[in-house]
């Protein structure tokens, strides 16, 4: 089956993310399933940016090292990506900036003649690509009409000129796929997360900008007003977390978003959530540390941080989705579970999932179980921390007639008043931990561990989060089972063991340097036979992981 990889590269600040999205939408419109990798340094201008769009007739989650088309806005792009070229790679470049072999288009000159801004040269090179690969003009035009809200006419003029200036390259023809399956939306993990939170009933979102979750903030700030969502960007992440707890105390379903550094500042409030039993969902997008690290790259290094953040002992729910469907489902479920059990939740994802583009099939998302929060009956005298068998106390919010709602970060009694009395302190500690049993019970009926690839195979890749996506593809290619614990706290150890049953060799695949999933599973006596780790900030390319898996299983 045919598949294609297209790289478009140039200087930072020249719209290469957008150009990548347009290319991805074109391929998506032709009936392919697409993935878009976007690589950018942590600066606004200068430096090298590129997108790789991979298109295949089946669901995909990763890019390949090699490319079939190399679209170069500058010399650097050709130089930096020379290793990605093979004999058949078609290079298309701006001949006003680069002298090279391949298809040169005088893009700067065309843009100037059409009175268009520099950024419109991207449209020209995309049109050149369509011309070379035989993609019909109307597919290109309709995509541009949708994607370019401003200056459309000059962009179309440039596109027309570039499109007709390039002769189709017969060996590089890209076919339109027969319409056997529906065209799926193409979006990022941040967008899917935002939609999932909204589906779960999100009423307030509070965040301080930080890659890779800033775009979730931007997305939610832009949703239609009639969804009734309040979005606040406060002074810092300490304020973010405490504001979130204020919203939830007043009855609003709330989430916050950040990355590791911001979550460091949130941990104090996170622990307050545990003690005061105020629900909050943290969208924690991982990027490599320690400290500022590699702000715009990806990793899976915060599993143990998330699991242990905050002083004291309290129940938390942690889930690490691996694709957009899981992101949507679990963002929504996290909100419901947080409210049902009055606990904090963490949706642990990463730059690879948050900012890269994937297809999303909402119809394949399992229906969310109905998980209402426990409301006060308005008859019994209200006690915010009433001791119950489940550990969950009925909720009331300020302004409820006849209820005095007292929440407290100190050890407290049932009415929420501070106490240091040994008996009450013990009962309350047990109460907040008891909620974990109900949580685990509810999770039993949910897809907390997924098995993919060749499900019955003896050799198994064990992975989590966005890395599970590329593992699925490797699993399919090499005939391996792929097991992915999606929920990581409480870890569904029994289900993981079941999923691994009959495996001959188990190899973990993680994007960190110390094997964080492996360590977690070791606590439950699950011990893999090998490990594949990567910690340069770049997610595994499909061929790269394939080679490492072959090596590990040799």
């Amino acid at each position, binding site marked *: 089956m045919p598949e294609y990889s297209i790289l478009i590269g140039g200087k930072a600040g020249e719209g290469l993310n957008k150009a990548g999205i347009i290319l991805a939408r074109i391929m998506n419109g032709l009936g392919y399933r697409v993935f878009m990798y976007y690589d950018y340094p942590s600066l606004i201008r200068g430096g090298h940016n590129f997108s790789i769009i991979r298109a295949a007739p089946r669901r995909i989650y990763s890019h390949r090292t090699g490319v079939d088309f190399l679209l170069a806005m500058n010399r650097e792009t050709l130089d930096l990506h020379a290793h990605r070229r093979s004999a058949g790679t078609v290079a298309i470049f701006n001949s006003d900036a680069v002298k090279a072999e391949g298809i040169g288009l005088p893009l700067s000159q065309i843009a100037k003649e059409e009175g268009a801004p520099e950024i419109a040269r991207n449209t020209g090179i995309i049109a050149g690509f369509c011309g070379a690969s035989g993609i019909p003009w109307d597919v290109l035009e309709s995509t541009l009409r949708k994607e370019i809200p401003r200056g459309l006419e000059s962009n179309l003029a440039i596109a027309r000129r570039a499109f007709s200036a390039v002769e189709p390259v017969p060996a590089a023809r890209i076919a339109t796929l027969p319409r056997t399956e529906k065209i799926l939306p193409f979006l990022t993990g941040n967008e899917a997360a935002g939609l999932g939170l909204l589906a779960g009933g999100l009423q307030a979102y509070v965040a301080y900008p930080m890659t890779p979750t800033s775009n979730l903030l931007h997305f939610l700030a832009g949703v239609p007003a009639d969804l009734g969502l309040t979005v606040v960007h406060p002074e810092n992440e*300490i304020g973010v977390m405490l504001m979130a707890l204020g*919203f939830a105390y007043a009855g609003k379903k709330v989430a916050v978003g950040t990355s590791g550094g911001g979550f460091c500042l949130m941990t104090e409030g996170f622990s307050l959530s545990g003690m005061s039993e105020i629900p909050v969902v943290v969208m924690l997008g991982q990027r490599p540390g320690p400290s500022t690290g590699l702000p715009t790259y990806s990793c899976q290094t915060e599993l143990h941080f998330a699991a242990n953040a905050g002083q004291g002992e309290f129940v938390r729910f942690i889930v690490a989705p691996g694709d957009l469907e899981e992101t949507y489902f679990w963002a929504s479920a996290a909100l419901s579970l947080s409210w049902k059990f009055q606990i904090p939740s963490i949706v642990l994802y990463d730059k690879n999932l948050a900012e890269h583009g994937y297809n999303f099939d909402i119809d394949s998302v399992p229906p969310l179980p109905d998980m209402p929060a426990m409301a006060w009956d308005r008859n019994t005298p209200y006690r915010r921390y009433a001791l119950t068998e489940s550990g969950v106390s009925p909720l009331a919010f300020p302004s409820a007639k006849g209820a005095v709602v007292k929440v407290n970060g100190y050890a407290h009694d049932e009415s929420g008043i*501070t106490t240091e009395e040994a008996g009450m302190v013990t009962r309350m500690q047990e109460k907040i931990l008891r909620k974990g049993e109900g949580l685990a019970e509810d999770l039993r009926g949910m897809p907390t561990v997924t098995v993919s690839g060749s499900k019955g195979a003896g050799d198994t890749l064990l992975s989590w989060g966005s890395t599970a996506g590329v593992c699925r593809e490797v699993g399919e290619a090499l005939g391996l089972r792929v097991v992915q614990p999606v929920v990581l706290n409480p870890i569904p150890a029994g289900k993981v063991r079941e999923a691994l049953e009959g495996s001959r060799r188990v190899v973990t695949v993680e994007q960190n340097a110390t094997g964080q999933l492996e360590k977690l599973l070791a606590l439950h006596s699950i011990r893999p036979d090998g490990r594949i780790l990567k910690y340069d900030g770049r997610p595994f390319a499909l061929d790269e992981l394939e080679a490492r898996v072959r090596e590990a299983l040799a």
Partner: protein
Amino acid sequence: MNGRQLITGAQNTWCPGCGNFSIQFALKALLQDLEKRGTSLDDVVLVTGIGCHAKMADYLNINTFYSIHGRVLPVATAIKLANPDLTVIGCAGDGDAYAEGLDHLIFAAKRNVDITLFIHNNRVYGLTTGQYTPTSPLGFKGRSTPAGTLEYPLNPLELMYASGASFVARGYTRNQPLLKKIMADAVRHQGFSFVDILQICATYFDVHDVYDKYVYELKDHDTHDPAKAMKRILEWDYNNPAPIALGTFLEREIPTFDGRFPVQPAVPAERMGKIRTILESYR
């Protein structure tokens, strides 16, 4: 719920002679007054930090959010945004608001969110047994600075003026009638109301004789004249002996943060339909 019992059964653990009793007394009067004027106490929320002052959350039988050290204001701000019909009051310590949570203080004033903040300014960390705070005078000998502090205090009123607070006042725990009046005015004011209350700490910083000597009530002061307000604010720098004005220094009528947010739709849109519409745009 008229005539509610306002004091909980929690055991009171303030030291004898502590100024917090006076603030509690004034708060009680404030709540009774609110109730008389038709505000249901079910619609009142008190947020406190951590410190001696914060025990107010345990002692008053109203909705309370006993927050963490320095974090009164983000909580109070969000409660107001979540439900603008609530009357939201914060009680914070000087360590709380001027040290640990200073960033939130400046932002609450800058945003002009419609909440009221009472600072129990005893100019010392009471609960942690007597260390200096940002308003302790230069040379203050506390347990962390046995040889005396090496830094000047800050003038919180000056800071609040500069940060955009729309109501700036100072009270004193040994002037009950004025304190009650200031508190009532502060809650009535629409916008961020800031009241620095000079509170006696009987155990670690009892300077009531100094205050009694220097305090005076602002009379014939135009609270809407910022230049005059600033002049009065700068009179005492929280360090050197000087006349200490009590009362409301400044009032500004400006739009509130919560008031600028779009009114929430009475009936929120059907979510799944909206989500599918958004998804269509990604095809």
